[in-house]
């Protein structure tokens, strides 16, 4: 999948991908139900989730309102 050219949208895409991967790790670990699955959940799942959420939060705090984007259609 090609990432978007706009920095904000690219970061949101990246955050989405990381969060989907973390949720897939969670699904896998819950299905496997072994001690190693718990460690995989904590290590890999925790890392991916933290990274995804941090990328999202970073995209919020670094969002530049002057950045060109599609106008808000819901506003008058």
């Amino acid at each position, binding site marked *: 999948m090609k990432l978007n050219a706009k920095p904000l949208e690219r970061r949101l895409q990246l955050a989405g991908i990381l969060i989907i991967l973390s949720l897939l790790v969670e699904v896998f670990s819950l299905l496997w139900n072994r001690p190693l699955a718990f460690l995989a959940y904590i290590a890999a799942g925790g890392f991916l989730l933290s990274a995804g959420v941090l990328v999202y939060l970073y995209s919020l705090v670094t969002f530049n309102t002057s950045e060109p984007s*599609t106008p808000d259609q819901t506003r008058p």
Partner: protein
Amino acid sequence: MISPTLFLWMLIVLSILLAFIFVVRPSVTTTRGGKILAFVVLFILPVLCAAMGTSQHIENSKQTKFCLSCHIMEPYGKSLLVDDPSYLAAAHYQNHRVPPEQACYTCHTDYTLYGDVHSKLRGLRHVYINYLSKPAQPIRLYSAYNNRECLHCHLGARSFEQGAVHNVDPATLPAIKANQLSCLSSGCHATVHNVEQLNNVKFWKAAQ
């Protein structure tokens, strides 16, 4: 009523589907609704899924089959099916004195304020030793078995409080309650798992 497990699965599937929207169309965040949705999907839902997933993992780790999934624990699982009432673990397991699906956890957790936390930390230590170190042979508890774990259920029970052997000497019962006289190592209930004797015992056929 939806069970917590089913709710978690539904939440994970919903979160994946919604997060996928932001992967294929991140431009939805240009609207106010899209921004709110992004906050829910990329922050609230993943954190909720992680919290519920951790809770589910902790619940799963209490299961007997979870403990017995490690090869080294197989003899201990087998000892639960010994056809001999003097085998303490087997008698408790077979007569449902402990929940069979949480047999290991029920007897091997600490019944203290942070008992659950200590149990889980011990569990992580087990995993470390099992995969990255060499487990002791035979396996030993890290510390002496505390009577508190037995008394969690037996304290106040008629068979314990008025048991003939417990009351032969008036000092016995207080000593047991104060953990000064061990239920196990005093010799009274010394046959617990005894995995080294498993080749010489009969097994409960109904469970096989």
